[in-house]
């Protein structure tokens, strides 16, 4: 709501003698004569622009409206033209308000067609208190439910726009960003409910699909949906043979007190005293290319006493403090007659290959180590 604060709601129409004018606006006098003169061509528009969402920026203000035209012989000039719009500051992001404007224009059109709500001078006056309520409630809570008459109610809600999510691969591991119990499970769809128990931050998509007995693509879609709403984030499969390294963000553990507190409580072993910052930071910094998690645990055995290393890695990945180094095999030389490599092209990681072929890491390692034509890149 802070982002899309509505400064004013206005109702504009084409008066048969006076032409385009603002009939009502809340708060009063917000739109100056000057401003309206400048933008009226975008408010009461030519036929070609009717029913389109129009946002115009002028004089430090943004006006969003949807011009409506209802043609009928009963109207003077044979048509009724009006536009119920919103005004915001020019710097506001207004994408979330657009569906609201569109819906409002739809409501008013229906009301006019059903009962002449707007063309009737008496009922038109009801618009003013309606607009006041709308302004207040949308700014306060982002939602508004307002009965207009016996048969019509306005229901509006500001919906936040989110970024498109990543494509979810079968070797990705979904992990909840907050405690699982935080969510009301009955609100989610059936597929998601079925897989929720298996989303533990360690099972990857393929495994969840097998264990929950849900088709792979459905699991993918369900997780992608959770990703869209920020309920889960994706990390990679955990194995003790994995290799990680630090990113510049690891310093946030030192700089940011809230990250520190969150991290230490997340990674401490169950039932143990809280791990200390120094140990945890040393562990993260001990992750370097060439060092496996197993190596880390044996090298820093004292530090790892109060720390659950799996959750340590999980937290580090979720917050971007560390990143996984994946292995990519590339077949650099081959016989002219043999087929071109399908998976050993540098585009598919071990995670992916093992998932697709069912091989274990060890098996894949053995197979590739003995092949002189294949080199492995880590990144």
């Amino acid at each position, binding site marked *: 709501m802070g982002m899309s604060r509505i400064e004013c709601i206005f109702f504009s129409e084409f008066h048969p003698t006076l032409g385009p004018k603002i009939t009502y606006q809340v708060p009063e006098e917000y739109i100056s004569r000057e401003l309206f003169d*400048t933008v009226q*061509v975008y408010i009461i528009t*030519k*036929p*070609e*622009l*009717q*029913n*389109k*969402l*129009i*946002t*115009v*920026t*002028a004089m430090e203000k943004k006006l969003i409206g949807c011009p409506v035209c209802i043609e009928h012989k009963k109207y003077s000039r044979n048509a009724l033209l009006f536009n119920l719009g919103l005004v915001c500051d020019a710097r506001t992001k207004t994408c979330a308000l657009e569906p609201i404007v569109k819906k409002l224009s739809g409501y008013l059109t229906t009301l006019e067609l059903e009962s002449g709500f707007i063309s009737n001078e008496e009922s038109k006056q009801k618009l003013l208190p309606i607009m006041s309520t709308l302004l207040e409630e949308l700014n306060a809570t982002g939602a508004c439910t307002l009965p207009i008459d016996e048969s019509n109610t306005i229901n509006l809600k500001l919906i936040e726009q989110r970024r*498109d*999510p*990543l*494509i979810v691969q079968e070797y990705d591991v979904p992990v909840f960003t907050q405690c699982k119990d935080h969510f009301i499970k009955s609100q989610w769809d059936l597929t998601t409910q079925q897989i929720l128990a298996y989303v533990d931050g360690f099972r990857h998509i393929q495994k969840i699909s097998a264990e929950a007995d849900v088709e792979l*693509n459905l699991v*993918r879609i369900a997780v*992608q949906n959770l990703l*869209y709403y920020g309920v889960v984030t994706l990390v990679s499969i955990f194995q003790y043979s994995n290799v990680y390294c630090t*990113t*510049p963000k*690891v*310093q946030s553990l*030192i*700089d940011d*007190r809230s990250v520190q*507190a969150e991290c*230490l409580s997340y990674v401490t072993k169950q039932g143990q*005293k*809280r*791990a*200390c*910052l*120094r140990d945890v*930071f*040393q562990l*993260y*910094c001990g992750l370097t*290319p060439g060092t496996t998690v197993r190596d880390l645990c044996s090298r820093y055995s004292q530090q790892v006493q*109060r720390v659950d290393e799996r959750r340590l890695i999980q937290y580090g990945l979720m917050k971007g403090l560390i*990143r996984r180094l994946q292995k*990519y095999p*590339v*077949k*650099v030389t081959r016989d002219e007659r043999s087929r071109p*490599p*399908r998976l050993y*092209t*540098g*585009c*598919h990681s071990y995670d992916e290959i093992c998932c*697709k072929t069912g091989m274990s890491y060890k098996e894949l390692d053995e197979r590739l180590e003995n092949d002189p034509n294949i*080199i*492995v*890149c880590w*990144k």
Partner: protein
Amino acid sequence: MYIHSSSFDLQGERKSMYKQSENRFFKCGEKTSPISVILVTSGSRGNKLLFRYPFQRVADCTSSLTTKQRSPYALNTTGDVLEDPDGDSREQTPLTDEQLVAGFSDIILATILATKSDMCGKKFELKIDNVRFVGHPTLLQHPHTIQVSKTDPSPKREMPTMILFSVVFALRANADPSVISCMHNLSRRIAIALQHEERRCQYLTREAKLMLAVQDEVTNMTETDGSPQSPFRQILPKCKLARDLKEAYDSLCTTGVVRLHINNWLEVSFCLPHKIHRVGGNHVPPEALERSLKAIRPYHALLLLDSEKALLAQLPLDCSPALVRLIKTCSAVKNLQQLAQDADLNLLQIFQIAAHLVYWGKAIIVYPLCENNVYMLSPHANISLYSPLAEAFGQQFPGHDLPSMLAKFSLPLSLSEFRNPLDASVQEAQLIQMVVWMLQRRLLIQLHTYVCLLVPPSEEEPGLLRDEELPLVARVGGRSLSTPSALSFGSPTSSDDMTLTSPSMDNSSAELLPGGDSPLNRRMTETLLASLTEHERQVILNIPAAQSPEDLRMFARLLHYFRGHHHLEEIMYNENMRRSQLKTLFDKFRSVLVVTNHEDPVISLFQSPLE
């Protein structure tokens, strides 16, 4: 909402061989390209659309007879591909951008884009459904006065009728705000040039007349012959301005670099950073670029992305000689300070020119190449066997393949280690060239060592997070070692620093103070350590190495670097110390220091896109 593909089979994924392996985001190329460019004017003859590109389909041509409501999503029933061979230079997608704008007739565009004069001189932004129009309407003269120049040499002098004009770009509505800003910038630049030429020789009026004449001609022809034509196609060969606008549009859609010569006289140049700075399929936002540029230091180096010759050939004739000198003198092994000396320019100029080259995508900032540099494969590097990079590498360095070279950098490798060739046939100089080649293509990142002071907690309550465990940064005032481009040469931020040692670029504090265990030094050390807690101080003083006053003094002096934000090379530069000195110090005090290696976040922008 998002759209997902439901075909996850291997066949489909074979296509990913040819794309960036890390590109799991939806392609955003369309969001940074304009859909259309439109020129409108307003004058005594009313509002007119002079030119638009790409052309509409013939069937959509403005027809004053039908005023049907056109949905921008309505597909034309006579076919779904634009017939114009030169109307479109990009691939079609099911819902084409052209169709979004094609739904608007010339007349309606003229009405909505040619604004009132009080909107002139400012950014114009209008969004209609899924299309966003951005421009900079420019006033040519006061609407109520018409000036006639008595000294005008042109033969036939008419009363000028044009009051204002606007070059408008149509974009997809979900374009990034920084892209919209850039397009507005370009519109403004073109407007300035046109305004100038109009005042000088009525260039715009003349071109407008030509355009309108062709439009009238074609309309007449349509009415008599009945064969519809696009007037804009006829305008192109006759009007230089139309060709310029088409060129601007085409360039924006492809390279992102626009260079026009309005009236063959005034140059308008512009670059869209979103097209130029693309790493791993994502664009680098200009604000991030600017932030990085402000943070570069004199010890950084400028690495040109083109060869010196190619770059010099791209410069205009009247370019600054300083720029030429810089390009000729710069090298990957020279830092900016040295470059300033060699090119005989002051450091501020070097910074400005370097920033300019980086902005235009002609160079990147790196740490100067030297033996001790440690490089590793970038997480965003394309290591595919079939990538165009692999091919280019094979051509540049015959007999070698890129994946094998990249595999060597799977573990961090210093330049000196890399130069001990396992394979004797490779020459050392060529190895360096390979590294430079890989850096230019963002395949490698450089790792630096960062140090953080973390004292083992006291025995009483080791697990709790008390105030004493607050990192140093919260207690010691942050001293930002800022760069000249911010016009402040290493200005200290706290008055404490003024009395002790201020890092400046050309002198080192180390040598100024008398050596040995003088009372002055001891007091200084004490003051420096005073910012620590009692517990921390105790632990440090108990370290065997702390018994040596020299070592302790050095440690105390460098204390403010031990927050994990300054890498080894920066400390070396600021304090004029040798790498071995620092490494020895770290080793001596290792019980209270935690060391880690990662890329420098300031310049890693050039290797990895922002999350």
